[in-house]
């Protein structure tokens, strides 16, 4: 293992928090579909001091947005420590490593490695696929850059090498369900330091997944952060349950969102009550996650609702964030 600052791999806040055994909290910031740095600044205001690291998405759902490296650098400038995301869809191993050298030089210390949504989902369906690497070999490449001090081709890096805290994702509810804990183990073996899961609403099923993960001993090799997110409306709940592949939203949650604001005529007031219920459900989920063995923190995905993150963490008793 390479020497980091004080024995840390990367020295990022997220790494320090997890190493100290504190329950971690990460959030997400979606870059804009334009070239306006001000959008990042405005979003950063809601997230400053609230999370141990904030994911900066990379052309999420294959829709062109400001690049994650630029948005990550802007977030850092605005006091929000980024977890830069990188997918395999748009970049080959040359571009990826070049971005990593640049990201590290810009002060970015966390990197989340993903396969990436297929471009069929997005707004540039005619584009060429890249997928030079997959998420597994991407994790391995980032690890070799850090601990092996070498490029993917085997060539030694002369001078400062990029040393990231390496993240990966896992969807506990995707098929084949039986294989998912093994795939998580594989990512740990490839070199992942932490894992963020997809949104969880079905807690019993997640408990079942975590039990198998713990049986395999994987929770001791990677820090697992459970994905949670506030639902804004009953419509959103139904959409997630019925239209999004790999998402498991129990009927009770949809029912709660539908019941919220029932009988209130005023649209604005009704929406406010629904949002309040969505936040309440999220807080309850976080409290349940803290009880599950092997869960080292939560990853809050408040899509285009960054303002919700602070109240959620406050009510879950996770603010102020510990200082390590």
């Amino acid at each position, binding site marked *: 293992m390479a020497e980091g600052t004080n024995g840390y791999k990367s020295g990022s806040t997220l790494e320090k928090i997890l190493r100290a055994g504190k329950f971690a909290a990460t959030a997400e910031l979606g870059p804009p579909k334009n070239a306006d740095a001000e959008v990042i600044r405005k979003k950063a205001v809601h997230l400053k001091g609230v999370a141990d690291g904030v994911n900066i998405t990379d052309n999420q759902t294959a829709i062109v947005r400001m690049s994650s490296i630029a948005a990550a650098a802007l977030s850092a400038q605005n006091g929000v420590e980024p977890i830069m995301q990188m997918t*395999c*869809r748009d970049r080959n*191993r040359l571009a990826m490593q070049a971005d990593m050298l640049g990201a590290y030089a810009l002060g970015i210390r966390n990197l989340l490695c993903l*396969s*990436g*949504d*297929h471009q*069929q*989902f997005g707004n540039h369906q005619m584009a060429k*696929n890249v*997928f*030079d*690497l*997959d*998420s*597994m*070999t991407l994790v*391995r*490449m980032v690890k070799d850059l850090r601990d092996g001090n070498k490029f*993917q081709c085997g060539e030694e890096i002369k001078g400062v090498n990029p040393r990231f805290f390496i993240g990966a*994702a*896992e*969807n506990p509810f*995707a*098929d*084949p369900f*039986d*294989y998912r804990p*093994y*795939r998580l*183990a*594989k990512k740990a*073996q*490839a070199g992942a330091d932490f894992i963020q899961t*997809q949104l969880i609403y079905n807690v019993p099923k997640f408990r079942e997944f975590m039990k198998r993960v713990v049986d395999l001993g994987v929770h001791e090799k990677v820090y697992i952060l459970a994905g949670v997110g506030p639902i804004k409306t009953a419509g959103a709940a139904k959409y997630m349950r019925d239209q999004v*592949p*790999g998402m498991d939203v129990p009927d009770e949650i949809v029912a709660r969102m539908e019941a919220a604001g029932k009988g209130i005529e005023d649209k604005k007031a009704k929406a406010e009550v629904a949002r309040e219920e969505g936040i309440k459900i999220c807080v309850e989920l976080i409290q349940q996650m803290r009880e599950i063995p092997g869960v080292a923190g939560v990853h809050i995905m408040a899509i285009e609702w960054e303002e919700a993150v602070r109240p959620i963490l406050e009510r879950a008793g996770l603010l102020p964030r510990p200082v390590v």
Partner: protein
Amino acid sequence: MIVAEQKPFEEIKTKIANANKVLVVGCGTCVTVCFAGGEKEVGILASSLRMASKVDGKEKQIDEVTVQRQCEWEYLDTLKDKIGEYDLVLSLGCGIGVQAIAEHFPDARVIPGLNTAFLGLPLEQGVWAERCAACGNCILDLTGGICPIARCSKSLLNGPCGGSDEGKCEISGKDRTVECAWDLIVKKLMARGELDKLLEIQPAKNWQTSHDGGPRRISREDLMLAKE
């Protein structure tokens, strides 16, 4: 086999607009078997083009011929004597056949009548699906005989990704026809007790043997004729 389908009739009609004498050339191998460019399809297309040209007021001369395999010089040699008579050669061969005619008869104007789609097989009558990406380094022994390069939308070597849903790929949409290759591979290998194969991390692919490394060529010294 190579699977292709005919270009839309209007597109072909537009492409031959300025020609008066056209030779439609079919192929007796892959495109016959996928009913795109065999003798029968050549006959139907030629006749449709003749009729259309008649309706438009100036009947064209549209002749037909089908060779056993358009990609081999010896079969194309049979066209040698007549090909010079035509303004345009409309090939109903795959992309290789079109180019073979163009290379073997440099003065001929050759255009494609098919869109060559993929390397695949017939699943049932009338349905063909992609199976091989010709990546140049076959690893089918590691994946239970199911190709992750050709059949996975992301060509993952350590799949599945998080978009695998009830055995279907995330791009499958409403018709649900695209299977998740990794769902198939994982279930097959786990059923055989070969989980250990799945737990090995497959290294980053060497794409040099694919088209990414440049146009490919194989030279077999043991088969080449002695130089004069």
